[in-house]
């Protein structure tokens, strides 16, 4: 099992994606998709990817919903900042001490930070597990470390670690 199918979750997702792309459930497409899914997971083995375990599907959905709401809110905020002519913004870099360490958590966190305009991923220091982000408007003095920790890190830890 583990030798032939090292990443069952990722293989299943690859097969699902293939079938969705082709919009077909014919035997031929399922066979072709399975071949691609298995070959894909072998590539991950060569890349030394850590094993992926999903837990608690409803937490994943909760995280998705929360990110969606935050995305809408930050889109509105950045749109206002762009259209406003005044220069009373204070952009800046923020250093955040992270708790999550797994590659998958970090990857999802990168997607979240990019998906919410107004924050962007700048650098990650694996030694101290420190993340540096750039924030478009630091004016309201939000504690960004606290925001990331409270909103996303807890959920990510529950999902992947």
């Amino acid at each position, binding site marked *: 099992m583990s030798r032939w199918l090292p990443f069952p979750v990722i293989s299943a997702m690859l097969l699902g994606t293939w079938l969705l792309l082709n*919009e077909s459930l014919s035997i031929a497409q399922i066979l072709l998709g399975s071949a691609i899914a298995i070959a894909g997971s072998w590539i991950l083995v060569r890349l030394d990817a850590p094993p992926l375990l999903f837990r608690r599907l409803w937490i994943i959905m909760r995280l998705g919903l929360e990110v969606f709401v935050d995305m809408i809110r930050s889109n509105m905020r950045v*749109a206002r900042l762009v259209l406003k002519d005044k220069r009373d913004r204070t*952009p800046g*870099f923020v250093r955040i001490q992270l708790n999550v360490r797994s590659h998958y958590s970090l990857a999802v966190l990168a997607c979240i930070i990019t998906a919410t305009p*107004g924050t962007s991923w700048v650098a990650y220091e694996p030694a101290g597990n420190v993340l*540096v982000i*750039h924030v478009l408007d630091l004016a309201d003095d939000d504690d*960004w470390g606290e925001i990331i920790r409270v909103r996303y890190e807890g959920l990510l830890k529950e999902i992947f670690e």
Partner: protein
Amino acid sequence: MNALEELPLWAAILTSILLVLGSGLALIGSIGLLRFKTFYERIHAPTLGTTLGLFSILAASMIYFSVGQTRPVVHEILIGIFVTTTTPVTFMFLVQATLYRDRFEGSDPLTGLSDEQRSVKTPARE
């Protein structure tokens, strides 16, 4: 195209609103790209088009094609997933390249960031 004429009014209105919203956000993002002055600020502007702007247009497409019943609406979901997962890669490369250049030129924007100081504010340049 016949599907457009057969589209009920509510779907047509909803599709148009979402399309205008999505393209408006992409436009605002491009204006921001022009208006912001430093690279690190500029990188925020186009994300308007790749997040809510993209999702508005995908939602418009889903409503249009599922009401018109020309095909099932799964491709849009895949587009959303692919764009959301690949944008950070490009952005990280761009930011890392800029950071490298800034450090090479002796103006590391991250100097001063340490355990004691959690954030560094950079004045918005005119």
